């Protein structure tokens, strides 16, 4: 009767990042002639809410499902249910501890954050104090980006000390206040890493409100405020993933799996460092979103 249904259960939907994933998914949906729905909980702690969403999505008898797991194990019983109903599952953004998903479309957040660490080190001359304003203490992305950054500093940049890690929930205003407190606590701070869009903008804001000079800010993800800050020179640069690509590849793999075609198990959608110098380069501009 209707078009094929491919629901995507993500980790959120309100943030720019997820909206970009959705845009990519919608694009693939239009090209491939399938109906794509996109949904996620309000924040990345709500593991059981996500399961209720997954359950509701399964009730609609989709041909395939895209799933960005908040917890690597919690959803396994439901995924088994999908498997029994012969609904292929494509994992995106974060995988699960199970071989049920036929593919994973994601960014290597650890490696991406390590790149941010390298860039930060380069910018501050491989010595001094830095801090992290992270968006979450427990979610996969929050932990990976924090650890990727901190561990890289420990391993490769012994002159740099990560003096503080605070969590602002990705809330712009909270991250702003955190940044101001960090700068008060560590007047000699040389750099701050914000682990997602809200955190990064918060850092920029805090620095701007205090009028501090000489703080190197490295961000993550894009969005207009972040690209503006980079153009203005307030932010040194940022890591961007390819969220549009993640959404696009997820739906494409889902449709292929539904049709019984082979899909590659690992779809790495990549990440990029962008700053003032390459922000307008076509390959970067293609993965940035506003």
């Amino acid at each position, binding site marked *: 009767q209707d078009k094929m249904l491919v629901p995507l259960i993500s980790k959120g939907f309100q943030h720019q990042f997820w909206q970009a994933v959705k845009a990519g998914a919608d694009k693939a949906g239009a090209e491939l002639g399938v*109906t794509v729905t996109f949904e996620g909980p309000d924040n990345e702690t709500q593991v059981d809410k996500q399961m209720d969403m997954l359950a509701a999505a399964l009730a609609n008898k989709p041909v395939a499902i895209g799933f960005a797991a908040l917890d690597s194990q919690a959803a396994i019983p439901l995924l088994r249910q999908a498997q029994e109903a012969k609904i292929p599952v494509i994992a995106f953004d974060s995988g699960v501890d199970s071989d049920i998903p036929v593919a994973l479309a994601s960014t290597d957040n650890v490696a991406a954050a390590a790149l941010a660490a390298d860039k930060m080190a380069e910018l501050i001359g491989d010595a001094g104090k830095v801090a992290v304003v992270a968006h979450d*203490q427990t979610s996969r992305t929050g932990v990976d980006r924090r650890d990727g950054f901190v561990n890289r500093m420990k391993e490769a940049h012994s002159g740099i000390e990560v003096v503080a890690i605070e969590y602002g929930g990705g809330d712009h205003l909270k991250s702003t206040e955190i940044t101001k407190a960090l700068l008060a606590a560590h007047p000699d701070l040389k750099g701050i890493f914000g682990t997602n869009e809200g955190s990064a903008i918060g850092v920029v804001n805090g620095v701007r409100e205090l009028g501090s000079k000489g703080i190197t800010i490295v961000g993550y993800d894009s969005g207009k405020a972040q690209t503006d800050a980079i153009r203005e020179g307030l932010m040194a640069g940022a890591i961007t993933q390819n969220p549009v690509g993640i959404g696009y590849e997820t739906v494409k793999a889902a449709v292929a799996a539904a049709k019984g075609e082979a899909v590659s198990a690992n779809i790495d959608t990549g990440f990029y460092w962008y700053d003032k110098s390459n922000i307008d380069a076509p390959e970067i501009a293609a993965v940035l979103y506003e």
Partner: protein
Amino acid sequence: MSERGKVMSIKETRRGGAQQKLWAFASLIVLVAGFSLASPNFFQVSNIMAILQATSVNGVLAVGVTLIIITGGIDLSIGTLMTFCAVMTGVVLTWAGMPLLLGVLTSIATGALCGLISGTFVAKMKIPPFIATLGMMLMLKGLSLIVTGTKPIYFNDTPGFSEIAQGSLIGRIVPAFPVPNGVLILFIVSAAVAWILGRTVLGRYTFALGSNEEAVRLSGVNTDAWKMAIYALAGGICGIAGLLIASRLNSAQPALGLGYELEAIAAVVIGGTSLAGGRGTILGTLIGALIMSVLTNGLRVMSVAPEWQTVVTGAIIVAAVYADQLRRGRAG
């Protein structure tokens, strides 16, 4: 004749009372009927089970907090307390490798103890319930993260743990009706609390405290002790909710829980319990919790855009309570 007239009209009042619940139930029926018409996938056994399962955790929390709300208090810590109970269960079962039963008892005991502490804040130290339980909420939130080292604790080494919420005793007997154990537990807890409220001294004092605490105190009742008992009982029920969510997720997620208090309190109020205290029913709370999860699930099954889901949920909650109000207005 006048006597007869009185008796008749009393019966009418009684009927009115029953109708009242029937009417709240009617909102639920209207929702279910509407969604069933709108999507063929809604009224399927598996989806109904999913809705019931989704109600279980919030329902148990709501039943617990109903007790406190009837006393005229409020408990903001229920969400993080649930999480903390789950975490302590994880410590006992996974880290210490104790047997399942001990884990279950730990969860309930942890809940009761924390409830008792909140109760002490409120009854003995005269801290307003809002602040006492807000403080508790923050402390428990932090403690869950500290105890776990911010990582989830998985229950893979405890066979049967996931059966607590996800298995189906009923399904084994009546395979066509695979009601998950979580739902069974919700109904058992509800029945038990309804019994306590309706039949026991504790229940009577729960209502009396909410109705006029000073009058109860001046009747020679040790109101402080009873209040603490009620908070402890509600805490123990949060412990059960902690077991349910841990079993559903097969893990104790330390960061979960914030925001659950609002949802549970909303279910209670939709169910007709007054935040001013003194009145309320467990049946109403159950219906309130079901209305919330039917709404959420139904809108999802209908593939309504998430931002519109929020708007529609808000509007329907207001409308449902308004319908209830209209009916009451007509009766009174």
